[in-house]
């Protein structure tokens, strides 16, 4: 008997929480992006765990599509970061106040 699914679910929940804390606390846009990746990985781990426990391959197919979407999201997100911040001196999210009234 292998590790029960509940352990994986708790681990994924903790990983998601760490990613969410980083997203809320950090100011560097690139590190915030990495925290989003952490949260996506936590969701992937949950999908795979449910896939194993419920004997359903659909969970792994969902992870496959999450991977594709994550790759596209990173490409576009980093493109936006480069487009914004290559004309600025630092990469913190607090500098994006151009629309402040």
């Amino acid at each position: 008997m292998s590790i029960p699914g509940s352990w994986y679910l708790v681990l994924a929940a903790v990983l998601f929480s760490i990613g969410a804390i980083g997203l809320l606390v950090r100011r560097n846009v690139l590190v915030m992006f990495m925290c989003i990746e952490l949260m996506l990985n936590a969701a992937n781990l949950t999908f795979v765990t449910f896939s194993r426990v419920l004997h359903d391959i659909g969970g792994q197919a969902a992870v496959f599509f999450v991977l594709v979407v994550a790759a596209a999201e990173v490409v576009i997100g980093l493109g936006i970061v480069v487009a914004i911040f290559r004309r600025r001196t630092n990469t913190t999210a607090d500098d994006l106040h151009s629309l402040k009234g």
Partner: protein
Amino acid sequence: MSPAMLATSITIPDLITFIVAGAFVLGGAIGVVTSRNSVHAALSLVLTLFGVAVLFVAQHADFLAAVQVIVYAGAIVVLFLFVIMFLGVDRQEDIESEPLRGQRPLALVLIAIALGSLIALFVNANWVTGARSATGSTAGGGHTNVYLLGKSVFTTYLFAFEATAALLVIAVVGAVVLARRPSGGLLDEPDAEAESDEEPAPEAGSDAVSADDELEPDGDPATRQEVPR
């Protein structure tokens, strides 16, 4: 069946694998959140991704583990490192200062509440409930994991698969459009205009060139900090 009943029959190699990979995952995640250098955060992210790949293997998701290593650790992290290097590797974030007062304790409290309620929800729902699939098993039945996943993707989820093709094309076009070099200098560099006023006027037509030169943000010694080796 309760988790306690399942936990009595865990084999030692499975337990060691889970503990080591889980320590990699959580340690890397904490490293991403707490490291002040972006490159260190990216390397901690690699640690987390490899740990997740090991956990995928432990759950018989072999193909996804390979894709995890290739796509995430091989492509996405390298893309992160490219952007970090492009924007300036010696920028360090001042993680001691807190622009919004009380934001960090509030964030910690909110996430702790969310995590606690999530785990309470899991416990209340007996962790994993639902009908077990009779046909789409993740392994076994004489078929490998890659066979089953490929069959699922190309039959049940064929439309979604085609949609991801369109998504990737759109992402490529968007990246090309976003990566074009804009005209103009730094937006928040107050010294740029003053310098151009003091200097003798350069020859006409060199505005674009000088703007490109000012893209390198390391000229200001105030924003430049030495990376501790």
